[in-house]
């Protein structure tokens, strides 16, 4: 927990990584709600059980954009199993913490990644080992 945004949050907010959609995505995770002010769409491309590419589109505050950006970096190159294990806490930690009020409302990126992986598994009928 921090009082304001860490330098890492501001870096990811100012220069978000992996922005955009993947046209032929293998899975899409849509989380959040415009009423609450945060909507995240996480796109994944999977090859041989590996998250080959991860991109995002986000409507939301600084923390929402920074966590989206961070999750793409954390997830890329990981196996699906590893992706599902990335938690909200991991994302906040990787950003050197988030302000208390943002921990719950804007820290949805891990949920978005999990939803994208589940979407992929449902579409392909694959099961994780």
């Amino acid at each position, binding site marked *: 927990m921090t009082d304001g945004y860490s330098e890492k949050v501001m870096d990811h907010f100012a220069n978000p990584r992996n922005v955009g959609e993947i046209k032929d995505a293998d899975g899409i995770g849509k989380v959040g709600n415009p009423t609450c*002010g945060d909507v995240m769409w996480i796109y994944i491309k999977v090859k041989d059980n590996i998250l080959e590419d991860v991109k995002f589109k986000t409507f939301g505050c*600084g923390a929402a954009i920074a966590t989206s950006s961070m999750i793409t970096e954390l997830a890329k190159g990981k196996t699906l199993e590893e992706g599902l294990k990335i938690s909200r806490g991991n994302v906040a930690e990787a950003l050197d913490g988030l302000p208390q009020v943002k921990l719950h409302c804007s820290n949805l990126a891990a949920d978005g990644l999990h939803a994208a992986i589940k979407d992929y598994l449902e579409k392909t009928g694959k099961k994780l080992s």
Partner: protein
Amino acid sequence: MKQVYMDHSATTATDPAVMEAMLPYFSEKYGNPSSLYTIGRQARRAIEESRQKVADLIGAKKEEIIFTGSGTESDNLAIKGSALRNRTKGDHIITSSIEHHAVLHTCKYLEKNGFKVTYLPVNKEGLIDPVDVAGAITPQTILISIMHANNEIGTIQPIAEVGKIAKEKDIVFHTDAVQTTGKIPVNVDDLGVSMLSISAHKIYGPKGVGALFLRKGTVIEPQMHGGGHERNIRSSTENVPGIVGFGKACEMAKERLPQESNLAALRDSLIKSVLEIKDSYLNGHPIKRLPNNANFRFSYIEGESMILNLDMKGVAASTGSACSSTSLMPSHVLMAIGLRPEEAHGSLRLTLGRENTQEDVDYVLSVLPDIVNKLRMISPLAR
């Protein structure tokens, strides 16, 4: 990088002349105004001179000014003080749904303690209807509190009309004039109010000092008990430097009032150009609005992200989005004018002040469209 401050409704820089006036009261004239010796009397005299200056700005009498610690305290004192004083006469309060939290949360507190409160709706431009005020009055109504102008969207309310209704029905009428004082003419007789709240730091004075106009004959219960300062209504050793600064700020505001309306031209140029951005809208009333207030909303993007991006370009502004605060719901004001939450989340408030120039406006216009585009590029809501 160029720095542009466009958040004058949040606070203003203390004017150097105000600071200069305050300084002696920290050091050589530090006496307690209640003390009888020389430096005590000097402080007492300074307070009374300031009281006159504050009174002069709003057309009040010197004896009708009670110094407080803030605009919020003035609102609390007016509402709780009046409600508690008149409890035997009735238990009903009328206010609006777009008041500052200093008024709204005070009313909620009174509701918890047995009072009944009517929160009047506003139209999509943020205006209350005086007919609604008259319609809400019951034999139990003891207080009406309607803000003079809204701090977020800048809409100026028909306070004088409400004042007539209140006078006719002999009901105590309070207005929060924190945003209007020093920006548009504020005269307690023209407005027909019994109480009026003002704050120093919104008019180039110091933080930590406010005042309540309390009309002669209007009686309230003190909310701070102690040594009997401020006519036994607000005990506390007076904030002498703050009060001196407040007086100086009021004196300067009175002199500068004709120039303040010039801000409207700057505001209008800002509004006109910003609205050229696709899917952008003005919140509030097009004409009945504070001369320094512009409040926009941009579809598909979120306010805090705009604020942070503007800050990276040296522009200080604010938003009514929940993501800038501790609550999840966006501003109650933007909801009350009928915006959907996702629309309210995309709001941006720019409030001008004395030092702003056309060059500042041009600078904001040079950076804002790119920020809006950049955020729309990464928004899943934009199509």
